[in-house]
């Protein structure tokens, strides 16, 4: 249940939250801090955009966002990449110096975590910038967007950083159950696309529901968003919690919402919205796609959507992401927001947990620092982590270190692995659920989990080590008493 608790922001963070209302605002702001570059030369869609995106993302600390506005064959069109591609850019969004250590960014997000007052402002559709242009007929996504191939062997051109809004097909009026998530979208025909989700995701649940009950599922694909939206849309919040509300709470500033033609809520200042409808039970060949584990996903049959309309701002920016073999913008974008909910969920039951670093490939590896309350305690914490919503699918390798080991400092983590691990402190749990695109799975969707307890040794508590057994009364005297009770019960005494 939401309360009135709001995040307290520093003067710098408050000023930034107040002035950044859209992707455009953020790019301008990043530019003032030498964190946004306009690429000065003409580029070919392939391979130039891919290569420059990788180069920008290679500097994990302070790599810049890059804007392309001279894309050959796409006159007047613009692409932005690497907007969340460095921790420096994330620090600036949170009102911190761009050299802020990753550990401090983690604790800033944790500090904001408890605020839960939705800060949402309604904008009439006729006043929303996203509605400056509307296309209802002769829709051709290949013409509207400067699409390009992200990795050389992708099956097509992907929209890979859009925030997709959808209503619960059975409760379309429930705002909280409206989902916002990032899913990979492959453009198919001029007005069709596939959207990949899995049953474990909110969108996957909604697609299953729609087809099971024969109900329409309408989506709005928001491209080029307020920087808080992609950052927090990928955070695993509860099914009936609104990602819009959550993103606004974390920013401590209002997000401007308006209503799309198809009835979903959308950001009023988003660059482009593609409205689509699930084609019930229809599938199209999708993939492969260079995914976050650094390998191509397979080719599968995936639900198909038809575009019903497109709205966009004047001179829209196609914000996209480079994703593939890490480190990539994908890792920076979602790493801290993958770590934070695991920490918050563990902390509720185990206050001894000091920090969680699940930055690596969406949490396929996680490092938890914890103070052992008693011998073997860290292993119990690991088991609890595997039972968190994200841990259920993603936390494959877990490393437990002491509370005085910084899980964000890999040299310290290696020290703990070198000096604190005993071979029999390693646990393998076979045949657990696994992300289907993890190439280490035994079969897609199923594989083994690894827990390495690299915390310091602790003597087991000695309760039970020296038991003094209770003498249980027994023998003929007790037998006689039982006989007596039996007779009393039957009234023979």
């Amino acid at each position, binding site marked *: 249940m939401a309360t009135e608790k709001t995040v307290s922001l520093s003067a710098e963070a408050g000023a930034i939250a107040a002035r950044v209302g859209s992707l455009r605002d953020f790019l301008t702001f990043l530019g003032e801090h030498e964190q946004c570059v306009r690429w000065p030369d003409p580029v070919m*869609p392939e391979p130039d955009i891919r290569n420059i995106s990788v180069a920008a993302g290679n500097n994990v600390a302070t790599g810049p966002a890059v804007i392309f506005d001279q894309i050959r064959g796409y*006159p007047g069109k613009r692409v932005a990449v690497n907007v969340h591609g460095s921790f420096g850019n994330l620090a600036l969004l949170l009102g911190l110096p761009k050299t802020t250590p990753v550990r401090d960014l983690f604790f800033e997000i944790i500090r904001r975590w408890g605020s839960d007052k939705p800060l949402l402002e309604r904008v009439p559709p006729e006043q929303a910038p996203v509605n400056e242009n509307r296309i209802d007929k002769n829709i051709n996504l290949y013409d509207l967007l400067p699409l390009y191939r992200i990795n050389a062997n992708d*099956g097509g051109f992907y929209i890979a950083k859009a925030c997709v809004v959808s209503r619960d097909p059975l409760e379309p009026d429930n705002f909280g159950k409206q989902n916002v998530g990032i899913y990979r979208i492959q453009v*198919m*025909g001029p007005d069709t696309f596939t959207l990949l*989700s899995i049953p474990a995701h909110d969108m996957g649940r909604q697609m299953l529901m729609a*087809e099971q009950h024969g109900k329409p599922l309408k989506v709005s694909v928001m491209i080029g968003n307020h920087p808080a939206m992609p950052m927090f849309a990928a955070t695993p919040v509860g099914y009936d919690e609104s990602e819009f509300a959550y993103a606004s709470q974390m920013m401590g500033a209002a997000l401007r919402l308006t209503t799309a033609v198809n009835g979903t809520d959308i950001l009023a200042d988003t660059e482009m919205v593609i409205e689509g409808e699930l084609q019930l039970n229809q*599938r199209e*060949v999708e993939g492969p796609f260079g995914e976050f584990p650094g390998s191509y996903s397979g*080719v599968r049959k995936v639900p198909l959507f038809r575009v019903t309309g497109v709205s966009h701002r004047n001179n829209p920016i196609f914000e996209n992401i480079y994703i593939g073999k890490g480190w990539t913008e994908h890792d920076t974008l979602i790493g801290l927001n993958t770590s934070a909910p695991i920490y918050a969920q563990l902390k509720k039951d185990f206050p001894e947990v000091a920090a969680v670093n699940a930055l690596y490939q969406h949490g396929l590896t996680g490092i938890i620092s914890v103070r052992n309350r008693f011998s073997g305690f860290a292993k119990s914490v690991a088991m609890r982590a595997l039972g968190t919503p994200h841990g259920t699918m993603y936390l494959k390798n877990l490393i437990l270190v002491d509370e005085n080991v910084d899980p964000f400092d890999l040299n310290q983590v290696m020290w703990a692995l070198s000096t604190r691990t005993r071979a029999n402190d390693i646990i393998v749990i076979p045949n657990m659920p696994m992300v289907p695109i993890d190439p280490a799975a035994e079969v897609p969707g199923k594989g083994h989990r690894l827990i390495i307890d690299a915390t310091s040794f602790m003597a087991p508590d000695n309760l039970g080590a020296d038991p003094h057994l209770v003498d249980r009364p027994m023998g003929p005297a007790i037998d006689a008493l039982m006989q007596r009770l039996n007779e009393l019960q039957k009234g023979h005494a």
Partner: protein
Amino acid sequence: MKVICPRCESPGVTQMHAGMEDGKVLWRVWHCKDCAYTWRDSEPAESVDPKMRPAWAQMKGVDFDSLRQVIPPARKPT
């Protein structure tokens, strides 16, 4: 020359868009109706030349109906 799909080598391909520069076509985007591959004819050979593409990425002769479903349909499409 007849355009075929670089991935499944089907002739069933459709032009989706053409990129213009100085009034001339700079590149064309094609889409295959069989395997759904999409490509631009200006791309490096590793993406658009069947001889240069990795063997694992080719789909000639694949039965597309037998591909795995991530979300199985509830019933046959109407």
